[in-house]
């Protein structure tokens, strides 16, 4: 077994520096790499380009990096619910590239899978396609979208082992599996690091080959963005 385990978030983030491009898993605040984000705030790297479906909320998730003005550019599909983000974007401090959610996922997957680019129908005829190559297949128009290039991918899983194998829980899976192996270095943090051999090979979502470093996060807040409930009869 090839060991991917590191002992701390500090060790896991060795090599990060300003002006790098990072991928962050998560949808809203669900399945985000809470420990890696907190450590990036601590380290204080700046001028970052962040590829993440959302930008967190004002005081949590990537919002913490925005607050410290560590992010230069966001590549996202949806950025509502974040006042500081909106302020930085409208004032021009923050460069924002909005792309369709499926395109975001597939540009990650393409990087993971060794495809330089993919054709997608999403965004054809809209401002998203401006300046991009388009092509017709069987009478329908498609836009050429390139694989992402990133220095680090920060993903979060439910369980993992020292081999780097990952298991996700619920909809916290989202972009995390697509970003594994899509950057030069993939750092996975897990709620529970279990001994090797415990995870059933049939039930592993991401094989360890896609993960470079794995650690157990010290603490997870797992904040709920929209708490919706129904009444008992």
């Amino acid at each position: 077994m090839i060991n991917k385990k590191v002992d701390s978030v500090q060790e896991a983030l060795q090599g990060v520096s300003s002006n790098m491009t990072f991928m962050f898993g998560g949808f809203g605040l669900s399945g985000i790499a809470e420990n890696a984000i907190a450590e990036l705030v601590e380290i204080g790297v700046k001028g970052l380009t962040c590829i993440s479906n959302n930008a967190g909320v004002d005081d949590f998730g990537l919002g913490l990096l925005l607050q410290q003005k560590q992010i230069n550019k966001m590549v996202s599909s949806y950025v509502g619910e974040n006042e500081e983000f909106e302020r930085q974007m409208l004032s021009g401090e923050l460069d924002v590239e909005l792309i369709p959610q499926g395109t975001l996922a597939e540009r990650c997957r393409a990087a993971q899978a060794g495809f330089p680019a993919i054709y997608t129908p999403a965004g054809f005829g809209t401002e998203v396609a401006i300046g991009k190559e388009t092509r017709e297949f069987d009478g329908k128009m498609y836009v050429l979208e390139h694989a992402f290039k990133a220095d680090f991918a920060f993903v979060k899983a439910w369980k993992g082992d020292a081999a780097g194998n990952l298991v996700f829980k619920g909809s916290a899976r989202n972009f995390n599996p697509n970003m594994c192996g899509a950057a030069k270095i993939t750092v996975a943090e897990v709620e529970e690091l279990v001994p090797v051999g415990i995870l059933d090979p049939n039930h592993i979502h991401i094989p360890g080959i896609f993960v470079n470093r794995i650690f157990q996060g010290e603490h997870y807040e797992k904040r709920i963005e929209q708490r919706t409930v129904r009444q008992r009869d």
Partner: protein
Amino acid sequence: MLDKNGIAKRIAQEVQDGYYVNLGIGIPTLVANYVRNDIEVDFQSENGVLGMGPFPFEGEEDADIINAGKQTITTLPGASFFDSAMSFSMIRGQHVDLTILGAMEVSENGDIANWKIPGKMVKGMGGAMDLVASAENIIVAMMHTNRAGESKLLKRCSLPLTGVGCVKKIVTNLAVLEVTNDGFKLLERAPNVSVEDIKNATQGHLIVEGDIPEMNL
């Protein structure tokens, strides 16, 4: 005239047995409340859930089980979770049968705008561009006019587009309309709404042929 729940109730009639359905945020979310319970329908949420159930009981919320609106949800027996690439494989690959979403503007040739107001509001398109570029069957749920009283059914959209020539049907507080090659074809009127009212609230080309029946809710 219908309220938001009325629009949802009318759209629910379009949902058929065996459909996989993706519901957008806002009025579309309400559609789930009105689908007949004698048919089998699975709701897909593009963040990675198929087989969505109702909201959880208080105390049973799980931060790891949410829908595309980031609301806590439950899953039904037979449900599954998956990653974002697979979720959009379902959408782009046309495995989802019906997409219902909101809009700021729709044009008479089926263009839709719902993600950006330049200089004012930029929340992003989320999965909307993938959904409208791929789905065979797209229904727009929206109010017929905006808060300023201006028509949202236009000759041409003035806002940045989400997709071109993709909307097939529109259900508003005033009417049910089909997008045809010649413009918006009026199919049904909401209760207590006249054809004249609909004409006045529609800026794009409206086609009225024969008697227009009132919606059967």
